[in-house]
């Protein structure tokens, strides 16, 4: 058995959000990933983000494909519907679900194998379609479940556990998403929860497809000396563009305006993302600049992290389609069936 329910023990002092729910209510089954797996930290950040945003769990849908990362949808929000589909095809299933019910909050969890090899096409086209969802790519540069093969995000020269060096150039999901016109592109690190969590919150509130590439080391197969996706390497080479502060709409009214926010972006629902400058001047609304920054970091052997690009003026799949506001799945049959008179009239056109 690899599905383990968590004991329903609750600490009486746990804080409740406005829905009366504690973070425990946003948890799922016990993780069966290896101890120390980066993915579990991402799961913890997701739980925290959903709790803080006070999203009723059953109004969210968790989508995933196949792989270690995709298993994690079982480890948070047991009161949400989840769909663990087939390898590399989560984006299409999520597209269909979103087409049917646009009111749910969709979170897709994928990995570098799932997204950049078998599912590369699906990822690209979900971005093009601009499906309103948060897409978390838990990137460890390795195939964990099949025990240590290189993935498409492995850097040239990065070595496997057995010492073999990767020779094929990597696919960078951040550059890819920027190129394809994604309207929310971020990179973070599973070991940096203070950075990751606000980005997840912003991504959940983004109006459109939000991609977060999370470097999430694989402790079993890719955390050794020589790997460029290890905890150590990532910590040493992480370059954060701007520290992000996410202010949900509810709090916006009561919080005093902070003065250190160099750039602030108002989200579709009225929430605000504030960027605090940490280094050189950086404008997260400039796609070309974001691309340039990521490329130059790469050239220096550094990993650009943070909310790298955001555009809140984009139109999601339904806006592009001019779909009715009410979810299609909830439209009554009477609103959909043209009826006998229309059919009788139509038949005259086929004579």
């Amino acid at each position, binding site marked *: 058995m690899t599905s383990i329910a968590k004991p329903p023990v609750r600490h009486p002092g746990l804080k409740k959000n406005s829905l009366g729910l504690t973070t425990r209510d946003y948890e799922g089954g016990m993780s069966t990933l290896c101890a120390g797996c980066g993915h579990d930290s991402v799961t913890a950040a997701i739980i925290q983000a959903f709790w803080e945003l006070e999203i009723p769990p059953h109004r969210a849908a968790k989508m995933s494909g196949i792989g270690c990362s995709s298993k994690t949808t079982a480890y948070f929000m047991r*009161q949400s*519907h989840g769909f*663990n589909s087939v390898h590399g095809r989560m984006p299409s299933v999520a*597209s*269909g679900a979103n*087409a049917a019910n646009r009111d749910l909050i969709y979170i897709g969890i994928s990995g570098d194998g799932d997204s950049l090899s078998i599912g590369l096409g699906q990822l690209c086209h979900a971005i093009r379609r601009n499906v309103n969802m948060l897409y978390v790519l838990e990137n460890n540069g390795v195939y964990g479940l099949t025990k240590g093969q290189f993935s498409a995000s492995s850097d040239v020269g990065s070595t496997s556990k057995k010492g073999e060096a990767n020779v094929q150039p990597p696919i960078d999901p951040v550059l890819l998403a920027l190129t394809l016109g994604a309207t929310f592109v971020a990179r973070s690190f599973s070991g940096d929860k203070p950075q990751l969590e606000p980005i997840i919150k912003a991504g959940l509130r983004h109006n459109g497809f939000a991609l977060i590439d999370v470097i999430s080391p694989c402790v079993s197969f890719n955390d050794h000396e020589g790997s460029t996706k290890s905890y150590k390497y990532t910590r040493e080479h992480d370059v954060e563009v701007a520290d992000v502060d996410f202010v949900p709409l509810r709090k916006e009214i009561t919080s005093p305006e902070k003065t250190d926010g160099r750039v602030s972006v108002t989200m579709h629902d009225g929430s605000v993302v504030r960027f605090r400058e940490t280094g050189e001047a950086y404008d997260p609304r400039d796609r070309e600049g974001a691309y340039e920054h990521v490329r130059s970091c790469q050239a220096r052997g550094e990993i650009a992290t943070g909310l790298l690009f955001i555009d809140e003026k984009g139109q999601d*799949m339904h806006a592009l389609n001019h*779909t009715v506001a009410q979810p*299609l799945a909830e439209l009554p049959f009477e609103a959909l069936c043209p009826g006998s008179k229309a059919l009788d009239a139509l038949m005259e056109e086929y004579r």
Partner: protein
Amino acid sequence: MSTPSIFHPPSSVNDFSFKIATVNGTGSASANSLLMQSIFRMGIPVSGKNIFPSNIQGLPTWYEIRVSKDGYTARPPEIDLVVALNTGTYERDIATVRPGGCLLYDSSWPLEESLLRDDITMLGIPFGKMCVEAFQRDRDRTLLRNIAYVGALAALLEIEMDVIHQALNEKFSKKKALLDANFTALRLGYDYVKANFQSPLPFHLEPMNANADYVLMDGNTAAALGAVYAGATVGAWYPITPATSLMEAFTMFCNQYRVDPVTKEKKFCIIQAEDELSAAGIVIGANWAGARSFTSTAGPGISLMQEFIGLAYYTETPAIIFDVQRTGPSTGMPTRTQQADLISIAYASHGDTKHIMLFPANPEECFYDAVKAFDLAERFQTPVFVVSDLDIGMNDWMVKRLKWDDDFRPDRGKVLNAKEVEKLKRFSRYVDADGDGIAARTLPGVSAKGSYFTRGSGHDKLGNYTEDSAAYQEVMDRLVRKLANAAKAVPAPELNTQKGADIGIVGFGGCHAAIREAVDVLRAQGVAVDYMRIRGFPFDQPVADFLNAHETVFVVEQNRDAQMRSLLAIELGVPRDHMRPVLDYDGLPLTAHVVVSAVTNHLEKKRVGV
């Protein structure tokens, strides 16, 4: 009703066939539609088969029109008149005219002596020359040559000019110049025949009143209309011949019926996906989230969707897939018809699976089967395939006017709402509470208590991940029971029996038109035959009963390997050799002749003791 016969006498009224041979991309398609429509509006049963290339411009294309006062709609067994306008195919086109028949060709250029036949009437009309003289623009000269042959045929076959005029008026009512040019071209052909030949031909038309209750419609249009009437809101697809026109028709009807007149908002979402895999994923995701969603595809798409089909089967998610079959394997002949996807659908995907199939016989059934498919998919929470083909999907058939019962309400299956979930002690996704093999599901977003985790990995009846042998097997065994119940819910076979027949003919899908005709021909010849048309899969007992009740059984199908016969043997345990395959897999619609020959040859062999 006269005695049906395949080879009729040289003179006949409302009972003949003609074929137009042209080059594709030159505008003959609309002229051929005009011919069909005009004959249809004269009240005469008519059907057309477009035999076209997988190409946009420059390759040979044919259009066969059959006029049958008795209402036979199968591909004609022989051709009385060929309109040969493609010099590239003259030789074989002239060869297809039956002895005593007629050839109409463009005499702007002389016909080679080697092509002359003395057993047919050869009529030359200088269509090209006349059009060059009458029209200035090159495009008009090419396009209107087609209307000129319509005019010539109107004179030769007595198609009512008023009817043609009316059809042209409707088509070009807003383009006066085009209308005038069409009228001119029409007269060119008509007047030339009247001035130079004896008309009408021995075989020609006379107005009837046989189709007041019918329409001319292709199956893809009808299937799309069925999807609209069934309440489908999400369509996902990847363009592929011959299924493309299905989703295009769905788009057209949705724009007609599902757009708010004030806000212009759409009550539908059609996604042209990056491939068929994605289309299948979208359909599964949308159905999972509670919308009625479908895709339309052909064989190569079915191949690509295999993994997702298994996911839908095992997670018990509804999915509706229209397969408009074309000639395989691989790319095959994309613009030719076949019934060769049966086995790849019946057990699609790895692991143990079985899927519901519906076999519409014509566009009329495409409409009703489409509606049925959505109900079955939601009732049984599993993929349902509407297995059509290019002949049904893309050709205009004369079918009964489609009717709708306003009291119809969709069967959404066992979907629990929040209140129903609240009443339960606990919601478990795969528990067979009613003993019919179908477990209740919930939709995302409805209730926290009703939430569950959908997974293609091994699960127990509670929906939990499992690697426990017994728990896994319990679910797999329930699926067997569920599909067995589905066999009783698919349309029952249609039987056409005759007292004392020991020959049984089995068919399905688009072959029905030809088999129905063959049965009439055989019976008229004194051969007693029964006919069973299979309408759904899995098979139910009546199918087995029919096979077992006949000493000799012929299974007619359009594939090389007798796929339907295999399914019958596998599923029903009927010995394979008890069923004689009648196989027609050249890519063209079936003719009655193939079936009649198979039966009479068998009887002849039996008689002489071979």
